[in-house]
């Protein structure tokens, strides 16, 4: 008798029950000499401790990249990477870019056409009161029609 696998009753979704941050690592690269790293260096000196303390689940590495523009590289648990160049940005703008990378899921950017997405799209579409036959309470309750 073949062993039957346990059928999945529900499909796990991140955020339903538990939320796991998709960003696992952020690399901050800067240059000591170049002026385009001014905002990045200010962010590293002043705001990085607060940012790192607020995100203990993200591994943060800081390393120089001499004679290059500053970048932030995000590594995600799906194996992908996203890089944002923060040249000539102010300290607060660098913080914004770091937040973007932190909140990203690592997927490619997709066009969003619908307000609500579904993992199991219905071929019939979403119910619409203006289409189809009229629904009466008597039909629902199984009462005889008048």
């Amino acid at each position: 008798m073949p062993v039957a696998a346990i059928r999945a009753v529900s499909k796990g979704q991140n955020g339903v029950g538990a939320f796991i941050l998709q960003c696992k690592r952020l690399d901050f690269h800067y240059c000591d000499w170049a002026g385009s790293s001014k905002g990045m260096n200010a962010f590293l000196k002043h705001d990085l401790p607060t940012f790192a303390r607020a995100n203990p689940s993200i591994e943060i590495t800081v390393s120089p990249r001499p004679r290059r523009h500053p970048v932030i590289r995000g590594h995600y648990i799906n194996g992908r990477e996203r890089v944002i160049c923060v040249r000539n940005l102010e300290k607060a703008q660098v913080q914004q870019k770091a937040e973007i990378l932190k909140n990203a899921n690592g997927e490619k950017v997709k066009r969003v056409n619908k307000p609500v997405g579904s993992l199991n799209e219905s071929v019939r579409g979403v119910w619409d009161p203006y289409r189809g036959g009229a629904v009466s309470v008597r039909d629902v309750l199984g009462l005889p029609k008048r």
Partner: protein
Amino acid sequence: MRPLLQAVAAFDTLLSGFSRQGHRNYSICRQCHERLQLRARRTSHAPRRVAFSSLSAKRNNAAEATDQLETPDDYLPAETGESLEWIGSKEWLEARDAKPIRHKPFLPVKKLTKPQDIFRALHRSLVEIYARASSTQGSQKHLWRDTAPNAPDETQLVRFKVEPSSGKVVLVFPDREAKARLCDALGAQMSGASWTIEESSRETQEGHWASLTLGDVATKFAIIKRSMQLTGIRISDATINSCSTPQSLLAALTTTPKDIKVVDSLAEDRRLKGLDNVTIYGQRLTAMDKDQQLGRWKVIEQELERRGLPIFGS
């Protein structure tokens, strides 16, 4: 604690109602009772023996001191609001803006960068300060303050000599005209005891002026202030303490401070000490570093050795 004026006024009104009754048939708290007693004393012109706090006592003293001030002769008390001085009106703003505030910074905005210019500025500051210090007139307190903005270039011809007996620094001028021009510029008295005139062809025996000893603290302070004023370069207090000769002062003025690297400032940051999720690298991360982090480098190394290939390139 800040007093609530409206609450105090209402409280006084309430107490005045109580005091008019003339007898205490009301059950009031201790603070209200004390306040009622104080009010009764005030109305009966009794001497004030109770003070609310030390602050109120200070206020009373200040008010008494204000009363003792003499009224100026031209003081005219205002009878209406229009005769008071108005602040913040349109005319007041125009009158204020008519006289723009001209701020003259102590240090010039533009710094001297060439070592020769810094050298000349330091020499000039030495000449000016020693000239003022040795003159019989003038304030010895602020030697650096009222120096001439445009001293003549003859300051560069002035040399220094140290008296062996007293150890005093003596200015040596090439001729009388140079001394007169410098005196006019500095406003110092010409009959200074330590101003010597010698021929410019003669060389001093005591060595270079940069090796003078800045022993007197007031003179040293004035020289440093004046040299900072002439060069525009600010010197830290720690450096000032360590400067004992003009040579060391010149070195401090000409040495550009080393740029602080981001790694050094992050290494000193105490907020990052307890964070385990932050790693700081002092050098650029190469592909080999990434392989080492993944544990892949040893495999690559073994394979390169097995095939007889160089590990680190050619």
